[in-house]
Structure formats: C-alpha cells, structure tokens
C-alpha cells in the first residue's frame, strides 16, 4: 500500500515505515517559538541543565505582543531577547526586521517543501501550503526539541480533498477553507491531515497558505498541498538550504475524500463563535463597527492588493474603523512600492506595522461589548478580539474591504454605486 505525504515525510524523518496511527520519533527541520509561547519553553529548557542545543534549527519570532504592548509584555519580550543573547542564537527576528511568525517562516525560507517543521503556535500548519508537514506544538515540547532536535508524532490519517475548476472573482482560499470547516465541523479533522489534489495549479500559493493556515480550525494536524511550478516560483528567492518535495503515492490510503468545485464557491463568512458557522455572504445581514485586514491567514501582499483594488476611490463607512495590518515588514514595504499605502490612507483606513495584535485580542483594535468586527483572521471564539460580548465574523480580504466601505458585511459586487 502506498503512502500519503504525511506518512512519507514522517517515514523519512523517523527512519521507519511510518503508517497512520503509529507513534514515531522524528527529527524536525525547524522548531519555532513566539513571545507568548517562548518563555515557558526557555524555562523548561534551562531546567534540563544540558549543553545540547540545536541552535541552527531554532527560530525565535516575537509577534504577539510586540512592539511591546505594556510593561508585562515588555518583560516577556525581553525574556526572549535575553535567552537569544545568552545562547547566541542565530535565527531571532527583532521588531522592524520581522513580522507575524508564520509569514516570516515562509519569507525567510525556513519553510520549504518536504520539511518537517514544528512551532509553538497552532497556525504552524500554514507551511503545508508549500508542501511542508508543519504543525503546532506546545512550549514544553519545543524545549525538548531545542535540546534533542526530535519529537514524538502520531502519524495522522489523511483526508483527501479534490479541487476542481477555478475560483470566481472575489473568491479565494479563505472562502474554500470556511466552506470545508463548515462542512466537516471544528473537529472534523481532529488528529488528521488534509491533502489537496486535483486542479491545485489553479490555486495561487498565497491562497494555499490561507487554506493550510486554517486546517487547525477543523482540528487538523496539517493541510498539505503538492509542490508544483507555482510553489517553486514562490520560494525560489528566499528558501534556505536543500529540500526535497514529496508527493503522495497513487495508491495511498485516505480516511475520507471531499470534492469541491471551485467555480461554484461563493464568498463566505463564518459567524460567531465558531469557524464552522460559515454562510454565503449574500445571506448576511450584519452591520459592523470594525473591519480588520491582516494576520497570518490573510496579511500577505496578495491580500492587500485584493483589498486595495476594492477600496480604491471609495471612503470607509463613517461608522467603521478599517484596520490594515501587513503581516511583515516585507509586505509593508511592497505596499509602499506598489502605491497601496496611498490607497488605504485615502479611503480612511488605519495602517499599522506587523503584529498579531488584535487577532488574538491582544491590542491594536480590541472590541468593546456589543461591537462587531468582520475580520480576515482565523478565529471567532467568544471574546477572541475583545469583550466576551463582542462578535467576530471571519471572511476573506475582498469581503473585509467591501464591508469596510458598506458598513455591513457584503461582497464587492454589492458595492455598486457606493
């Protein structure tokens, strides 16, 4: 019997014949921590009292509460800086040369096809968009990986997702993944991986990263795309070191098969308080106080271009704050170079530097009781972006931009005449 991509990568990294259901010990290519999950890992590592440290494989990216929100977060970020200095760690990314951790992992070339990457952040599954098996872990096990470069993995069963056709205008990866999560539920892929097949060449890499990013919102361990010419073009200037892409065997075994005709998909919005509460935007009747464009899900330059095209020559609705948060300094710079900053400023948006900030209810856009935000982020749990009585509606960049103008959740083609 053949193997899935997840089984192949775990076989290679564990030196065993890894099959779904087994638990294997495997070597990781990289282990990443951020400012929230790092401190527990640093303390656990120091308690080990070992000299062993896989420094080249460790990546440290402060992004959740930086630039420092307050004294407590300043102390926390400093704990990471002190750890980096003490151990002379090479892969640390300081504010101003950094961004949201998952965007950096791709931009800086740590993520690459065929690699096994773990990160103490649940959205580490993002790099499946470029054919990596990447998954979220905890802080203590990050500390274990600092010391040993190894971790235990349960080899996941895999759900095969067959894509047909092409996205229509203003429909993209976010709409696809909200559709999938709505169909199978927030635990529909628990302990499992997704593997994407079919007309994948019609799906831009940026959209693939969005889809893989939210695999965790269905409980998934990973969401893995094949490596094709679009992948190679996307990573060619940035990837570090050698890598070996992995494809599934034709006779690999899958626990479930899902099929989606991309040309039939329409813009989706996930209502509070679960990402599985997806509905077509045309059925929505929701006024908003805030529209948030950013995060590891939809804070890439491609998302900024889509949104800028929609708000160009228009004004943000008087009752709305439109927050634009590029996912990295590189995206920020590209926005300046392509004239997108001007468009967002002209329409009345607030633009900040990269941070996870408001996505997780940290800062820079917290919601008051009763307020509603449409958001290009990934979670709409109770109180996720602020007060427990606030509401988050998840959507893609086109719907977020159109909604910022309309003052309610709409698709761009509902803006005619505005």
């Amino acid at each position, binding site marked *: 019997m053949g193997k899935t991509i997840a089984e192949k990568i775990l076989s290679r990294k564990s030196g065993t014949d890894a099959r779904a259901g087994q638990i294997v010990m495997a070597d990781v290519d990289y282990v990443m921590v951020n400012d929230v999950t790092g401190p527990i890992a640093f303390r656990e590592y120091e308690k080990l009292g070992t000299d062993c440290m896989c420094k080249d494989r460790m990546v440290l990216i402060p992004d959740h509460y930086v630039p420092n929100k307050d004294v407590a977060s300043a102390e926390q970020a400093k704990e990471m800086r002190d750890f980096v200095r003490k151990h002379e760690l090479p892969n640390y990314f300081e504010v101003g040369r950094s961004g949201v951790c998952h965007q950096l992992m791709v931009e800086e070339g740590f993520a690459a096809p065929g690699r096994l990457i773990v990160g103490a952040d*649940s959205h580490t599954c993002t790099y499946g968009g470029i054919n990596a098996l990447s998954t979220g872990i905890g802080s*203590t096990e990050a500390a274990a990986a600092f010391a040993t470069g*190894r971790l235990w993995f349960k080899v996941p069963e895999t759900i095969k997702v067959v894509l047909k056709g092409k996205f229509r205008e203003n429909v993209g990866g976010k709409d696809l993944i909200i559709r999938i999560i709505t169909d199978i539920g*927030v635990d529909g892929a628990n302990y499992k991986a997704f593997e994407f097949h079919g007309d994948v060449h019609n799906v831009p890499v940026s959209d693939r990263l969005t889809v893989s990013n939210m695999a965790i919102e269905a409980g998934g361990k990973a969401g893995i795309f094949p490596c094709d010419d679009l992948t190679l073009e996307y990573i060619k200037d940035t990837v570090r070191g050698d890598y070996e892409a992995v494809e599934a065997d034709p006779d690999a075994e899958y626990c479930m098969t899902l099929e989606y005709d991309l040309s039939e998909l329409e813009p989706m919005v996930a209502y509070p308080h679960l990402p599985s509460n997806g509905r077509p935007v045309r059925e929505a009747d929701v006024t908003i106080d805030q529209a948030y464009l950013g995060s590891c899900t939809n804070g890439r330059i491609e998302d900024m271009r889509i949104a800028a095209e929609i708000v160009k020559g228009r004004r943000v609705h008087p009752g709305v704050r439109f927050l634009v948060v590029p996912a990295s300094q590189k995206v920020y710079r590209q926005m300046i170079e392509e004239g997108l900053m001007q468009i967002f400023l002209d329409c009345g948006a607030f633009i900040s530097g990269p941070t996870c900030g408001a996505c997780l209810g940290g800062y820079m856009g917290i919601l008051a009781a009763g307020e509603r935000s449409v958001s290009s982020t990934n979670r709409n749990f109770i109180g996720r972006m602020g007060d427990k009585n606030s509401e988050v509606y998840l959507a893609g960049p086109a719907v977020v931009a159109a909604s910022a103008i309309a003052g309610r959740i709409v698709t761009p083609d509902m803006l005619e005449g505005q």
Partner: protein
Amino acid sequence: MEKFTGRVWVFGDNVDTDQIIPAERLVASNLDHLNDFIFEKVRPGFAQEVRKGDILIAGRNFGCGSSREHAPLSLIEAGFSCIIAESFARIFYRNSMNIGLLLVECSVEDPREGCEATVDPDNGRVVVDGREYTFPEYPPFITELVNSGGLMNMVKEGRI
C-alpha cells in the same frame, strides 16, 4: 498510573483555549498564578470555586484552538487531577500528556455537576455518579510518557 476520585465540574462541546485562559493573560509575569484566570470570561468566579482533586467532564473537542500550554497549566494549577471528555483537540492532548495533566477520552451521559467521579486509568474505567464507563487503553508510548512523569523527564533520561 494513579487512580483519582474527585468532585465533578461539567462543560459542553468545543471548549476552546481562549475560554480556558484568555490571550490577554498570556504574559510571563502571570506564569506562577495562571489559575487565577481560568474560565474567567465564560464562568466568572470559577477560579475561587475549584478545589484540589476536582475533575472536569466535557463533551467533544475539549481544548481546541491555540497551542498555549497556559491552558493545561492553568487547569493543573487550579487543582484539576484529570479531564474527561468525549474527545480532545490534538495540541491540547499533546500539551497535557507532556506536562502531567491526565486526559481520559470517554463519553459520559448527562453528568451532574457536583457529583463524584473516579478514574482508574490502568483498567480503562471511569465511574461517574455511580455509573460505570470504559475507555480504550493508552498507546504504549503515552503510558510510558505519563509513567515517566512527563516529556522533560524522558528527555533527561535520554529516551528521546
């Protein structure tokens, strides 16, 4: 593995880690008192009511969402001896088993808050309010992990 008996608290399906401990509490200076914030948005005052040895029973997908280890840490610090749920989200499962919070995958019918539960992990047996349930054996690696006292002990012993 150790047997536990304790007072029961009942939660529903899809209890996410933001509910267990909100993101705004995730700063290093809170690490020695994470239990103060447990379920503060969805059950205000809960932290004051939990006693050492209590057992939490939930529905499907307990611990979904973020990878924050602060979630199982806050449950341990609050005094919970173990969590029984129909299913657990995978990162929460890893985190808990790695740091010594025992999880039991078992579906309990209409548990009553405040009743007594007993968990016998080695024999795959749970008794809630006098009714007995069974759950499957842990994989050998997980048993070894728990009996070692957690992942870092296995690393210290050179077993990883």
